[in-house]
């Protein structure tokens, strides 16, 4: 670890450089080789000599291809990022209360996280009561969704549904909107968890339908939304799960871009024109504490995507080349020990995302590592964003780190690394085949292992955990708030009663329509899901039927 390193030779003024090198060598007792998480070596100093010849000219302007400095000319000076805090807890009433207070404090968009039971495709009467509503809101049908979004103008506020295939939550929301008389053409938002490939690889809870079935439903979803909810982003390509599972930043970006290519190629194979669907592709990333690496990751990603969209996917509209992304501060970086430290962590992560040019941001609460955020934590998380923007003035300049010798050099290096990893996916036959065979999972597992080893050896410090362990600070780790059991029981009882009031023949008819869509080559499964939601079908009923017809999702587990 502490081996002597020759500082790199620099090409500018000889005496100045030589002097710096000498003083540096004298001043640093034992030089050690440093590499970032993605494995790129990091030097102690970067100068103009580290820039590619003509690099600055190639950098371009924000809003112009290849968008290294930002996808819009105005970036955050024109329109600030969307403060999209993910919320979910308890019953629809609990959710609605929290949602309204967050909106009052400046959040500008809605995001909904359902209970884990919903992710697994179960209704609340199939699951132990004590597990309900602890990690998200229990929404099982359109009526629950309506209650969640009470008082929210769906024509004005953008809604992100954390909703994996077959997208029942969006179906419930559309039905609720319809009942309120709102035109679907006015609705905007994102299917935040439409990336079945990332679920297969790294977040198995979201993985419900077998791989081929999930692929089919996604294509149907994209096609249907384009026609009926044109302002909705049906495709969010997710890098967050993979990075949370241990992928390095370069791997996460590479695999995400490869997924995007796979999904785009699937759409093209379905007869869609890239310029029709690509403008509605968005991305969802993790932001870790490796500050500069994250900034470089996002800038490189933007550049690569613009080229891919144009050259590989054949898109000619500039809107198709723009890399739009939502980012969330990384939860695995947060600690249970000395929890208030997490506020500092989230601040650094958020800054990296802002300098990276995100379009939408969720900041974790300091207690998010071990619970769904409490009131105080949620408030601080939103205030953090406001402070960075309005007190620290981080957004007064577009791409303020642009031109930095280090950041530009690192952006180039990350680009190279990302492209190399994407090549291994291409060699494996594309992202679908790569995840089917386990290549991606093995790569991520190896990186996760390496990180664990670095933490255990002390090479990677985690304050309060493997260093600076003065005090566990348990009192700032308050007992976790569990949802009120009685309230949940009532919610469940009402739901069961409501199900019983439906006409059995209407239910059967709606389920059969799902089956017909699934079994036909040209039926639209998501369209049938929306119809089913309208007919009063529940989340489990829809998921169970589609699992029967399209296969139950068993991810490939690679240890």
């Amino acid at each position, binding site marked *: 670890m502490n081996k002597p390193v020759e500082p790199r030779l620099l090409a500018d003024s000889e005496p100045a450089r030589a002097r710096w090198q000498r003083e540096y060598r004298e001043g640093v007792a034992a030089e050690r080789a440093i590499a970032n998480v993605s494995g790129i070596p990091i030097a102690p100093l970067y100068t103009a000599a580290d820039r590619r010849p003509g690099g600055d000219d190639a950098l371009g302007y924000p809003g112009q291809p290849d968008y290294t400095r930002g996808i819009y000319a105005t970036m955050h000076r024109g329109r600030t990022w969307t403060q999209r805090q993910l919320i979910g807890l308890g019953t629809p009433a609990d959710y609605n209360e929290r949602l309204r207070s967050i909106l009052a404090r400046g959040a500008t968009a809605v995001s909904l996280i359902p209970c884990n039971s919903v992710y697994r495709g179960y209704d609340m009467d199939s699951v132990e009561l004590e*597990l309900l509503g602890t990690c998200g809101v229990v929404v099982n049908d359109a009526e629950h969704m309506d209650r969640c979004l009470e008082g929210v103008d769906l024509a004005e506020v953008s809604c992100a549904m954390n909703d994996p295939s077959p997208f029942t939550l969006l179906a419930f929301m559309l039905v609720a909107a319809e009942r309120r008389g709102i035109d679907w053409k006015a609705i905007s938002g994102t299917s935040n968890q439409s990336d079945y490939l990332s679920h297969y690889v790294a977040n198995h809870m979201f993985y419900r339908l077998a791989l081929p079935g999930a692929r089919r439903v996604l294509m149907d979803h994209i096609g249907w939304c384009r026609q009926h909810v044109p302002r909705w982003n049906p495709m969010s390509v997710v890098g967050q799960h993979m990075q949370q599972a241990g992928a390095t930043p370069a791997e996460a970006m590479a695999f995400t871009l490869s997924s995007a290519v796979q999904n785009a190629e699937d759409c093209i194979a379905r007869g869609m024109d890239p310029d029709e669907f690509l403008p509605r592709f968005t991305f969802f990333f993790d932001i870790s504490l490796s500050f500069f690496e994250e900034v470089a990751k996002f800038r490189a990603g933007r550049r690569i995507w613009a080229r891919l969209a144009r050259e590989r996917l054949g898109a000619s509209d500039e809107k198709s080349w723009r890399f739009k992304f939502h980012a969330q501060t990384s939860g695995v970086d947060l600690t249970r020990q000395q929890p208030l430290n997490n506020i500092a962590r989230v601040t650094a992560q958020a800054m990296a995302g802002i300098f990276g040019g995100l379009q939408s941001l969720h900041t974790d609460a300091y207690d998010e590592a071990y619970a769904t955020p409490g009131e105080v934590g949620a408030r601080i998380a939103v205030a953090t964003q406001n402070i960075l923007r309005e007190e620290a003035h981080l957004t007064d300049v577009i791409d303020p780190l642009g031109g930095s010798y280090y950041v530009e050099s690192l952006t180039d290096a990350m680009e190279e690394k990302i492209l190399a990893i994407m090549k291994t996916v291409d060699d494996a036959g594309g992202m679908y085949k790569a995840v089917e065979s386990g290549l991606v999972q093995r790569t991520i597992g190896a990186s996760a292992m390496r990180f664990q080893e670095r933490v255990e050896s002390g090479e990677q410090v985690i304050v309060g*955990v493997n260093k600076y362990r003065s005090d566990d600070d348990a009192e700032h780790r308050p007992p976790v708030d569990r949802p009120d059991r009685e309230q949940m029981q009532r919610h469940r009882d009402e739901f069961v009663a409501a199900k019983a009031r439906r006409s059995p023949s209407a239910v059967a008819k709606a389920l059969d329509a799902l089956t017909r869509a699934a079994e036909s080559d040209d039926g639209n499964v998501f369209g049938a899901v929306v119809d089913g939601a309208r007919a009063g079908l529940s989340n489990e009923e829809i998921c169970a039927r589609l699992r029967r017809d399209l296969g139950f999702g068993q991810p490939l587990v690679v240890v």
Partner: protein
Amino acid sequence: MSDRGADFRPRVLVTKIGLDGHDRGSRIVAAACRDAGMEVIYTPPWQSIPAVVKLALEEDVDVVGISSLATDHLIVPKLMAALRDAGLGDVRVVVGGIVPDDEERSLLASGVREVFHPGSTMDEITTRIRDYAREARRARADAENET
């Protein structure tokens, strides 16, 4: 590795019950146990309690390791009772992940041998698991010698 061929090869089940699906930690623990010479049955998340009990019985595991990052540990006491009912009271159960302090106490009271918090090293975890496996085998041998 020095442990190999020592006295025995522990059989360990690493699993997640309940609903959560984040399994980065459990996969790392499973790999660490394998590298420490153990035989690991590794399952994906969302196993039901009856399935875990049946698996523990058929595979004759020494230790069951439950990974819980959200709230799935809340049903571990149910698992403890189910194991006892199936005659598997000698199987040792450990929990790893995110467990609030007060809930840790009730887990231990229900019979869980230890709760590993984030920051525990793989060495610590595999060493303790091996100790618990030895405990389980001794308890079993004692019970069988009495019949």
